[in-house]
C-alpha cells in the first residue's frame, strides 16, 4: 500500500459515519419531499409528485404566516441578543476576581434544557401565580392586567425574551474573550488623543469586534431559526397561530398529521433559508477581510 492511498483509508471511518448519519438522511429526506406520503395511510413511501409539495407551500397561508413569524422572531432575537451581549461583554471583560466569578455563573441559563426553560417561563408568566407576571405588572403598570401569553404581540415578545435569555450567556462569553484579546495600545493612544468613552466604543471597540459580531450573528441566526423547544412548551404556536414558527409547523405537519412529504419539503425550505442567511454573512466576512 502506498502513502497516497493510506490517508483515504484513515479517513474512511469518518466518511462512513458522516455518510450514514448526515449525507444519507439529507438525500433521503429530499427524496421524500418529492413524494406524496402520509404515514397514516401506509408505511411505504407514496407516489412521486415532483415539486408539488414545494408549490403547495407557496399557496399555503399557514406557511407564509410561519415564515413571517420566523423572520420577526429571528431578527428580534439576533439583534437584541447581540446588542445585549456586547453590553454584558464590556461590563464583564475586566480583570477582577469577582468578575471572573460572575462570568462563571453567567453560563447557568445556557446550561439548562431549553424545554425546561420554556416550562419554567410559562409557569413564571402564569397570570395567577407567575413571578414575572407580577414583576412586569409592578414595573410597567399598563401591562398589569395583560395575560402575557394570551395576546399575539406579548406572546411573541415573551418568546423572544426567553430565546435571548437562553443565548445571551454564550454570546456574551464570545464577546468577553474577544474584548479581552483587543490590543491595549490602541486604547491608550485614543485616550492620549483625548477621545471620549463613546467615541472609543463606536470608533474603536465596535469596529475591532466586527469579526466576532459577524460570527455571533451567524450562530445566533442559525440558533433562532431552529428554535423549537421553548416555543412548544411555552405557547405551542398560540394564541391562534401567532407564534407558529416554521420549525413548529414542520413538526406539526410531520409528526401530528404524519404528512411526511410536505413536512420534508418544509424542512428543506427552512434549510435553504438558513443557508441563505449564512451565505450573506459569510460573503460579508470574507469580503471585509476582518479576520486580519
Amino acid at each position: 500500500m502506498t502513502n497516497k492511498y493510506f490517508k483515504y483509508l484513515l479517513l474512511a471511518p469518518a466518511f462512513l459515519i458522516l455518510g450514514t448519519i448526515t449525507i444519507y438522511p439529507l438525500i433521503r429526506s429530499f427524496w421524500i419531499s418529492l413524494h406524496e406520503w402520509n404515514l397514516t395511510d401506509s408505511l411505504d413511501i407514496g407516489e412521486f409528485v415532483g415539486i408539488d409539495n414545494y408549490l403547495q407551500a407557496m399557496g399555503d397561508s399557514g406557511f407564509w404566516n410561519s415564515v413571517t413569524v420566523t423572520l420577526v422572531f429571528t431578527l428580534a432575537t439576533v439583534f437584541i441578543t447581540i446588542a445585549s451581549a456586547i453590553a454584558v461583554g464590556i461590563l464583564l471583560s475586566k480583570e477582577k476576581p469577582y468578575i471572573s466569578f460572575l462570568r462563571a455563573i453567567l453560563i447557568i441559563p445556557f446550561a439548562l434544557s431549553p424545554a425546561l426553560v420554556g416550562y419554567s417561563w410559562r409557569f413564571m408568566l402564569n397570570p395567577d401565580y407567575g413571578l414575572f407576571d407580577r414583576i412586569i405588572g409592578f414595573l410597567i403598570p399598563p401591562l398589569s392586567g395583560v395575560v402575557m401569553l394570551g395576546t399575539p404581540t406579548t406572546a411573541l415578545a415573551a418568546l423572544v425574551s426567553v430565546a435571548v435569555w437562553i443565548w445571551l450567556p454564550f454570546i456574551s462569553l464570545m464577546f468577553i474573550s474577544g474584548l479581552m484579546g483587543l490590543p491595549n495600545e490602541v486604547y491608550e493612544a485614543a485616550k492620549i488623543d483625548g477621545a471620549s468613552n463613546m467615541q472609543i466604543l463606536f470608533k474603536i471597540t465596535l469596529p475591532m469586534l466586527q469579526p466576532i459580531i459577524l460570527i455571533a450573528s451567524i450562530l445566533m441566526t442559525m440558533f433562532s431559526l431552529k428554535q423549537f423547544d421553548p416555543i412548544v412548551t411555552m405557547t405551542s404556536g398560540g394564541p391562534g397561530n401567532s407564534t407558529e414558527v416554521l420549525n413548529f409547523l414542520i413538526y406539526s405537519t410531520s409528526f401530528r398529521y404524519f404528512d411526511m412529504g410536505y413536512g420534508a419539503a418544509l424542512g428543506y425550505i427552512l434549510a435553504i433559508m438558513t443557508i441563505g442567511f449564512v451565505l450573506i454573512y459569510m460573503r460579508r466576512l470574507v469580503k471585509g477581510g476582518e479576520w486580519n
Partner: protein
Amino acid sequence: MLKKSSAVFFTGAVVSSLVLSACGNDSSSEDLEGESITVALSEGDIGQFNAWQARSEEFTEETGIEVEFTEVPYNNLLDRITTEGISGQGTFDLVTHLDVMGPSSRQFFEPLDDYAAEDDYNFDRFPESTLDLSTYEGEIYSLPVRANAQLMFYRKDVFEDLGIDPPETWEELEQAGETITEETDMAGIAPYYQAGNNGQNLYMWTSYLWSNGADILDDEMKPVFNSEEGIEATQRYIDLLVEDEIATAGSVSFGEQEARTNFKQSNSAMWIGWWWVYSDFNFSDSSDEEVLGNVGFTTVPGWEGKESVSNISTFPLAMMKDSENKEAAWEFMKWLSEPEFEKEVVLDALNGDSPSNQFSTDISQTANLNDEELNEAGDDLFTTGGESFENAQTLPKFENWPEVSDIISNAISNMATGESVEDNLNQAAEDVEQLLEEEGYYDE
C-alpha cells in the same frame, strides 16, 4: 433402530400435544410463566394508572407474567407510539392513548376480536359509546378501560353561601358566574382556550355547539360549525371571557391542566371537564384547603329548552402489532378489564383503603356505573356519569381529524383574544373544507 425411536418420539409428541390442548387456557397461561410485558402509560401521577402499577403484582403472582410500566409524557404520546410502530421493535406490548390518536395509530395495533372469540371475552361490558371509539371498520382495536364523561364541577360552599343552585342551563351558568364575580374575589369559571394540546379547547366548545343543535361536520364531511346555531353557540362560549368577563382572565392562555390548577387554588368556582378530576379536586394534596371536599358535580348545562349534550372521551389500552408477547399481553388486558378489579380499585379509594396516590374514581364498565355499593360510596357520581355516557356525543373519528382539530382549535384561541367569532369560524370552515377536499373526502 433409528426409525423405531423416531416413531416413539412422534407418538409421544402427538399425545402430549393432545393432552395439552385438552387442558385449555390454563395450560396456555402456564406456558406464559416467566414472560415479561411492557405497558406504556401516560405520565401525570394518574391515580388509576398508579393503582394498575401497584396491583400488577397480584397478576404476576397469579400468572407468572412480569409487568413493567413505562410513563410517557402526554404531549409526546402520539409521537412515541408512531416511532415505536414504525421501528417495529416491539418495545411496548401495550399502550394507553387518547381516543383521537386511534385513527392514525391503529395501523400499529393488533385487532382484538380473535383473542376475545377464543376466550369468550365479552366486549359488552363497556358502554356502546365508549366501545365505538375503539372500533374501526367493524374490528375492535383497544379496550376503553379509562373512559371520561364531561361533567360540571362547582364549589358547593360558595354556591351555598351565595344562595345559588347548580346551573342546568348556560343562562343559569352565566348568572351564577356574575353573582360569584360580584360577590367574591373569585372568577365565575375557569375555561381553557389555549390552542394545541390535542385539541383540548374543543371539548367545552362542543358542549355548547351540540346542545344548540349544531355540529362540526355533516354526513358528507362538510364543515357546518359556522351555521347560525354554531356561531351563536361559539359566541356564547367565547363571551364567558370576552363579553361577560365571568371567566378568569388567564383562561385565554390556559390548557386544561392550568385551568384545573386555577380551580384547585380557589381562584374560580366552576369548571367543566372530565369526571376523573373529581378525585383530584376533592382529595388531592395539591388542592387548596377550601377546595378539598367542597367540590360538587352535575351534568354539563344545556341550551334553554334544548337537551344537554356532553362529550365523552376514552383513554383506551391497545396491544402493539409488533409485540412479541401478545398472549401474555392479552392475559393482562383480560385481568385488567375484569369488572371486579375496576370496582375494587375505586371502592378501596373511596373507603380510604388505598394510598392517596392511587385515588381513582375511574369507572368504565356498565355494571359498575350502576353498582349500588359504588354509587353509595361516591355520592352517585357514577350514575351521573353513566347518564352522560348515554347522552354524550363524541368527536369525529377519521385520519385527518388532528389537522381539522388544530384548525378549529387555533380559531377558538384567536377568538378568545377578542377577534371576531363569525370571521374566524368562517375562515376555519373554509380551511377545513379545502383540506378535506385535497385529501379526497368529497370525491364521488
